[in-house]
């Protein structure tokens, strides 16, 4: 069978990830491709917006200084694109929660494939660690790229923008809180699925919990918006603490369930 990595006959290992890392990457290859495509698409839209359309929008604004009435069609589209990308980047954690509670953990527990994984030579603890670490790395790398791209696009032509940094999606998409939301959603999905052991309930509860967390954060955020970084980093810290708590709870649930 040619697809096998290292036959005992040749003994030459194929380069690339091995063990649990290979397993998690292969099992969730589709999700990884979708995430990569999302990151690439969002960055492409931002780059096109700045490189391909900003000049036309600036000419429109310039024209408005001299003529009245004037058209600001390109300015509106420019702002809509940034707003759309910012919203998608900010609320992508809801999709992460759905993936984690559903496909990543819920489905394995509901259909019993965990019994296959846990009777190989890896402990359930290492299985859970890999199932959290590999997606967390992908979310951190992709999220960082998205935040950097959004920060660049948002500050490139401030004179064209019709919203400021206090908008909810801009507030999140411009800093590490965006990554913290994804990591929190990942851990919440894990603990929910381990507790409920059903795909759809775990998916629904994970999304609902993350939407609630976000609502609470948005509510308290409004009281303290004179500076950007202090409330942003405070929110990031709270989300990372929540993520760590959820991950520890997932390990505790797992430990009580298996030998």
């Amino acid at each position, binding site marked *: 069978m040619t697809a*096998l990595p290292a036959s005992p006959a040749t003994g030459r290992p194929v380069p690339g990830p091995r063990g*649990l890392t290979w397993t998690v990457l292969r099992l969730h290859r589709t999700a990884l491709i979708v995430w990569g495509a999302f990151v690439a698409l969002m960055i492409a839209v931002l780059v096109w917006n700045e490189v391909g359309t900003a000049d036309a929008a600036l000419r429109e604004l310039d024209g408005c200084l001299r003529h009245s009435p004037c058209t600001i069609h390109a300015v509106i589209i420019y702002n809509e694109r940034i707003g759309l990308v910012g919203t998608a980047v900010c609320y992508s954690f809801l999709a992460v929660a759905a993936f984690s509670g559903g496909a990543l953990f819920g489905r394995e527990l509901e*259909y019993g494939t965990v019994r*296959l994984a846990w009777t190989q*030579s890896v402990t359930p603890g290492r299985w859970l660690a890999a199932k959290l670490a590999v997606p967390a790395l992908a979310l951190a790398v992709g999220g960082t790229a998205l935040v950097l791209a959004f920060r660049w696009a948002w500050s490139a032509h401030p004179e064209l923008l019709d919203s400021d940094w206090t908008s909810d999606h801009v507030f999140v998409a411009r800093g590490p809180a965006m990554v913290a939301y994804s990591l929190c959603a990942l851990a919440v999905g894990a603990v929910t699925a381990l507790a409920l052991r059903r795909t759809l309930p775990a998916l629904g509860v994970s999304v609902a919990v993350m939407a609630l967390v976000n609502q609470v954060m948005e509510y308290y955020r409004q009281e303290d918006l004179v500076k950007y970084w202090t409330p942003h980093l405070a929110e990031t810290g709270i989300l990372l603490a929540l993520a760590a708590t959820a991950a520890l709870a997932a390990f505790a649930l797992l430990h*009580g369930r*298996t*030998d």
Partner: protein
Amino acid sequence: MTDTAIEAAGLGRQFGRRGKWALFDCTFQLPAGSVCAIAGPNGAGKSTLLALVAGLLVPTEGEVTVFGTNPGAARERLAFVAQDKPLYPQLTIAETLRLGHELNPGRWNAAVAEPIVAGGGLDPHARIRNLSGGQRTRVALALALGKRPELLLLDEPMADLDPLARHQLMGVLMADAAENGTTVVMSSHVVAELEDACDHLLLMGGGRVRLAGPLDDLLAAHVLVTGRAGDLGPHTVVESRTTGRQLTALIRPNGPLDAEWQTSEPTLEELVIAHLRSPAAPELTLTGETGTDADTDTDSDSDSDDTHTDETDADAEEAAK
């Protein structure tokens, strides 16, 4: 004196805090290298017992050890094929075997796993989700055997297979186990498929162990008697039926039998069915090491059950007259 593969002591598992006890007070020993059948009706606790031995469940009470350690620590040395043959539907067969290679570093032997898949004429690039139940069973067994386990736990392994595949895979399984000295434990509610393959029997019913021990010893400890309805005296009657004046009974003889009885050794199926029909029949656990056919009823509870069963049977005989 052989090593012990599995030892269960007072093992019990309850589902939910006030839920049903799927298994309770389960005590037995299985020597390494034996091939053990777990028989019993649906809901007898077979799957629960296998999941406990595989370390997938934590006992509510009692304990189970595998090769002298807890099942979690013996994870590398055992393989488990669950009843519904869970496999990842999005993987191909080749990728599923690669998963076995990746998750069992230093143990995996592709030269064992690949012929099992090839024996079913399966395309390695076919996806698991497109396979039939029997084909999935084949892949699940290939994954289990490729790990080179010292203890192989199989829950209803042959249920989805056609007779030809069943015969072929059972042959592969038994040859592999004999060659490597693998301990095999397999559950089934089809008794006939176990008789040729197994040397140990664990009969379960209602969450309890009903019979446990070397198959030959268990069969030798029972006698099928036929004759004119009469007193079976000191013997333990497992089941008796009267047709007209003819009495047929499965007994555990305690002392010599009257010459008027026709006697024969029961088959595995007769032994199992008689016990399933009589849930009140006392438990019997034989250990191969005693080297005798002596009835070693485990505790005094069993003895009081004896009396109870005898009385019930006597009552039934009265009623029949």
